């Protein structure tokens, strides 16, 4: 078994062991839980040590008759950097969960599902075969369902879990069909070969990438398939951290990056991506502004930030997208874990129950503040650099240097800048409502979380602070995230901020902060029931466009089945018996009637044959 496969299998084994030995002690369960992703992290580091950005490690999987599975893998710089991030975040989430899920009776299966989630994401990352990719992709959907529904006693959790699974599954119709088209037209399942073949035919590229895009919209929570993600906060906070940072949502962006040459061959699809990203980016940020729940604010912010990555892909810069993916992963994981710490302390995630926590939870306060600053994009935090790279890419496109039309670049640039302002506003609002001002909610002693929970926060704060510098020309990242397995492309200096974009973003940021400071947030937390807070009625649209018609169809089919098909069948039976009963009336026992019937039949037979013979 090759190293990339080992990396996938290790957390999977941890998951299986955790499930099989459900009754083991908590400590053992925790050890296994942490060991899985940690071991994978070690393997990822070993892989990175081989410098795959120079020469990708391509493995065609097992050969010959005994090939048990389409296990071809490709490890290039892109894969290894994302894998490192995934393993890192997953390990921290597992460690954090030890503390956070202390009183959880189903800890063992919970931790196992997180390990499985990690394994599935790693499978997507290293997959060199489309079928392998599909496996990882779908298992992730399953894990998100299982983990969001961790508290399945609660109605909310049940609903959110099903919603997450089904909404992403709807996108997967496109994904699956897209993969089928790709396999069908190129005749291969190996990703590098298939992508190369598909990118040389623009029709195939458009169809396949358009279909796959549907799946990406679902997984990466882009309009109109985004609505599952805010609800997914019904799951425990560490799960949110994992889903929002390292696994589920990252997978969508990652897959586009992996198949990027094919997308580049289709300006139509890229344009569609740009439009969708712009809608999502700004819309989600605005919605985040009015949320009454800490985790919901963060969830909508994820939707909005993912749109930056999709936008970067749309305007032709995979590197910017991946850069933002990585930096976002660090600060968003940090934010969710910090939010979890607050929930742990306060017992609620509603903003009406927080406020004034600064003194009692200093570590959480510090780390979450760093996270929020990164989210807003304040220099020199990682979010600043990565967001800048997106803006730079949009600027390039606006100048007509990319495959998409210049107006697409302008659109992205404008919307992204406006969104920066809104982001600053909601981040500030969240920060103030959580940490400053008077303490709201029930009075109870607030303590800082135990080390097992705050150490991961600190560990995540480090890359949140420093990761951005790697993107400078002197840093290693531009070389690292080249995906030279599918396309050797690297634009030197692409990730370096430009003057224009810095000016724009700083202006927007200041505007946003100004608005944020003027908002009287603490008096108007809201109840989360307004049209805006409910996500601009997208859920209602799902309901009217999909759920209700489907339920009507279900009713029709059920009625048709019992009313028409089944009744036809049983009607035949009943009719047969009834005709037997009718016939029985002719058998009454009077012999004269019998004989005359027989003779009549005879006469009829004779007459008919005579006529037949005569003619």
């Amino acid at each position: 078994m090759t190293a990339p496969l080992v990396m996938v299998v290790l957390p999977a084994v941890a998951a299986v062991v955790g499930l099989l030995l459900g009754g083991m002690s908590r400590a053992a369960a925790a050890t296994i839980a942490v060991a899985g992703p940690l071991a994978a992290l070690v393997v990822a580091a070993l892989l990175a040590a081989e410098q795959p950005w120079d020469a990708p490690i391509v493995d065609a999987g097992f050969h010959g008759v005994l090939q048990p599975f389409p296990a071809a893998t490709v490890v290039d710089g892109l894969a290894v950097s994302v894998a490192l991030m995934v393993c890192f975040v997953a390990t921290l989430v597992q460690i954090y969960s030890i503390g956070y899920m202390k009183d959880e009776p189903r800890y063992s299966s919970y931790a196992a599902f997180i390990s499985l989630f990690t394994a599935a994401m790693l499978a997507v990352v290293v997959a060199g075969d489309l079928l392998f990719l599909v496996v990882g992709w779908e298992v992730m959907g399953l894990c998100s369902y299982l983990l969001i529904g961790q508290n399945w006693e609660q109605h909310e959790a049940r609903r959110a879990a099903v919603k997450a699974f089904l909404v992403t599954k709807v996108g997967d119709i496109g994904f699956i069909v897209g993969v089928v088209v790709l396999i069908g037209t190129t005749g291969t399942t190996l990703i590098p070969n298939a992508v190369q073949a598909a990118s040389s035919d623009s029709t195939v590229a458009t169809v396949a990438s358009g279909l796959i895009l549907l799946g990406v919209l679902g997984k990466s929570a882009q309009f109109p398939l985004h609505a599952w993600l805010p609800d997914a906060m019904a799951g425990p906070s560490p799960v949110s951290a994992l889903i929002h940072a390292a696994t589920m949502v990252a997978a969508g962006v990652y897959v586009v990056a992996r198949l990027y040459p094919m997308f580049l061959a289709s300006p139509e699809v890229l344009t569609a991506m740009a439009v969708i990203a712009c809608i999502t980016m700004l819309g989600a940020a605005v919605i985040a502004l009015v949320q009454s729940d800490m985790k919901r604010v963060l969830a909508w912010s994820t939707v909005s930030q993912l749109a930056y990555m999709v936008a970067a892909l749309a305007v032709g810069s995979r590197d910017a997208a991946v850069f933002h993916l990585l930096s976002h992963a660090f600060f968003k994981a940090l934010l969710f874990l910090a939010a979890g710490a607050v929930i742990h302390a306060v017992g609620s995630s509603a903003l009406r129950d927080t406020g004034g926590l600064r003194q009692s939870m200093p570590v959480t306060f510090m780390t979450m503040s760093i996270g929020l600053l990164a989210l807003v994009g304040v220099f020199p935090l990682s979010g600043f650099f990565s967001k800048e790279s997106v803006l730079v890419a949009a600027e390039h496109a606006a100048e007509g240097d990319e495959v998409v039309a210049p107006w697409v670049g302008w659109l992205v640039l404008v919307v992204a800048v406006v969104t920066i302002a809104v982001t600053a506003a909601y981040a500030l609002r969240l920060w103030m409502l959580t940490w400053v001002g008077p303490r709201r909610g029930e009075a109870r002693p607030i303590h800082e979380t135990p080390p097992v929970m705050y150490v991961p926060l600190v560990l995540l704060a480090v890359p949140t602070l420093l990761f951005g510098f790697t993107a400078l020309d002197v840093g290693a990242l531009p070389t690292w995230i080249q995906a030279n397995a599918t396309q050797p492309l690297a634009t030197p200096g692409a990730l370096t901020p430009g003057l224009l974009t810095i000016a724009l973003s700083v202006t927007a940021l200041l505007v946003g902060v100004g608005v944020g400071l003027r908002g009287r947030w603490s008096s108007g937390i809201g109840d989360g029931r307004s049209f805006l807070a409910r996500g601009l009625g997208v859920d209602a649209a799902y309901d009217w466009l999909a759920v209700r018609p489907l339920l009507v169809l279900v009713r029709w089919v059920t009625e048709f089945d019992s009313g028409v098909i089944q009744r036809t069948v049983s009607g035949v039976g009943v009719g047969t018996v009834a005709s037997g009963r009718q016939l029985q009336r002719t058998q009454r026992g009077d012999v004269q009637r019998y004989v005359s019937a027989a003779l009549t039949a005879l006469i009829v037979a004779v007459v008919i044959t005579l006529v037949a013979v005569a003619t």
Partner: protein
Amino acid sequence: MTSNWLLPALLVVPLLASVILLVAGRRAESWATWFGVGVQSVGLVLMLGVLAEYKRNMSGSMQLVVDAEWVPELLVHFRLGVDGISLPLIALTSLLGWCAAVYTVRRVPEPGRARALVGLLLLLQVGLLGTFMALDLILFFLFFEVVLAPMWFLIAFWGSGERRRAANTFILYTVLGSVVMLVGFLIVIVKTGSADMVALANGLGEQMSGNAQLAAALLILGGLAVKTPMWPFHTWLPDAHTAAPTVGSVLLAGVLLKMGTYGMVRIVVPTLPDAMVQIAPYLAAFAVIGILYGALASYGQQDLKRVIAFSSVGHMGFVLLGISTLSVVGINAALFGNIAHGIITGLLFFVVGGIKQRTGTTAFASLPRGLYASAPRLGFLLGFAAVASLGMPGLAGFWGEFLSLVGAYHPAVPEHLFYRVMLVLAAVGMVLAAAYFLRVLRRVGQGAASQATMDDVAADEWLSWTPLIALTVVLGLAPVLVFQVTDPAVRMVVESVAGALP
């Protein structure tokens, strides 16, 4: 050394055993179930013998062939053999038979009478195995019919609810189907003068005129479609499943349904290729209607067993879609789908049977909530089987369905655009399948437990279910274990169609 005795032995052992139980009298009640396990274990060993003797590198041709003239007046030969198409199904039958026997030891359904139950199960085994081994049309038909009476008894006597009506619907409907199929067989026999399935597949059948082929193919497919069951001939299935005892449901869904699709691949496609090419698009349409209809109807059901029954309609729709592509990938996918559905739905029915045994019901209205809490392991297995059944990649249920779609992208028949529309609709069906299974899990598994505790999975249940659980995972991770056996045989079949393509 010749091992041709293996296949007849696989039939003779359960047959003799059931005769022994018949004549043993009432004193056999006490040891009948153990006897059943013994006999099925012997069958399993024989099956391993077959697997050992089977030459994988010659999977395209018939192996371990037995041929003896039996009824010359009807051209019937007692002709058995196994190739890549039948081997997986034979193995599946042996395995599920064993699982059912183990399950029966401690769980003889009401009203008892273990001797008769085991005897009927063994007889059922004869019919199922015989169907998959037969290489003579009439012999195939006979084995096809052998299955009916035991299954009828199982439902009518050990079932629940409206069992008698369900049993009668089952047998009358499927007999009507098989008589129709027989007429099709007879057309083939009369026109070609042979009932030898191998010879017919190797070009003898193609010599029939176009119209004769079409008539025969429609009749045979019609009969097999009832068994499969293909929409709209599925009505007997939900009732039969709801009424049947657990082992009955398991074997019904696990193996019985496969006889229909197996017959299509084994007989109709290679023997009547010209007709098959004409019919294939219609078959695809019916298959896809079945996928969507099965999913929607599943969602609307108020009984756990009925949900799974309708889900079978959908799953078999994928198998039919695979067959209708007449392509190497599609037919391989269909054969894999057969096996996967047998394993997974068998497991599902076992688990649901376990639930029914504990709660006395499978109706949503009366089922207690929160199985995950009251019996975590049983709940886990329900979730596992449901997830496998909804086509989760990495588990066995996925590959058959996914590869049918791949097959439908490049069908061997010319109507590519039509098939692509079908492909998309079938993919929609995959999502709908997720919807109704999640509904089941939400209703049965999740929620605060309304019943504090329930007996969790017992040792004997683990014993009889573990092979299915393991296979679900193993075939999900290594589908090639099946494909390496089926592929050479499928290529032979597809080759015989190639000449018929325009």
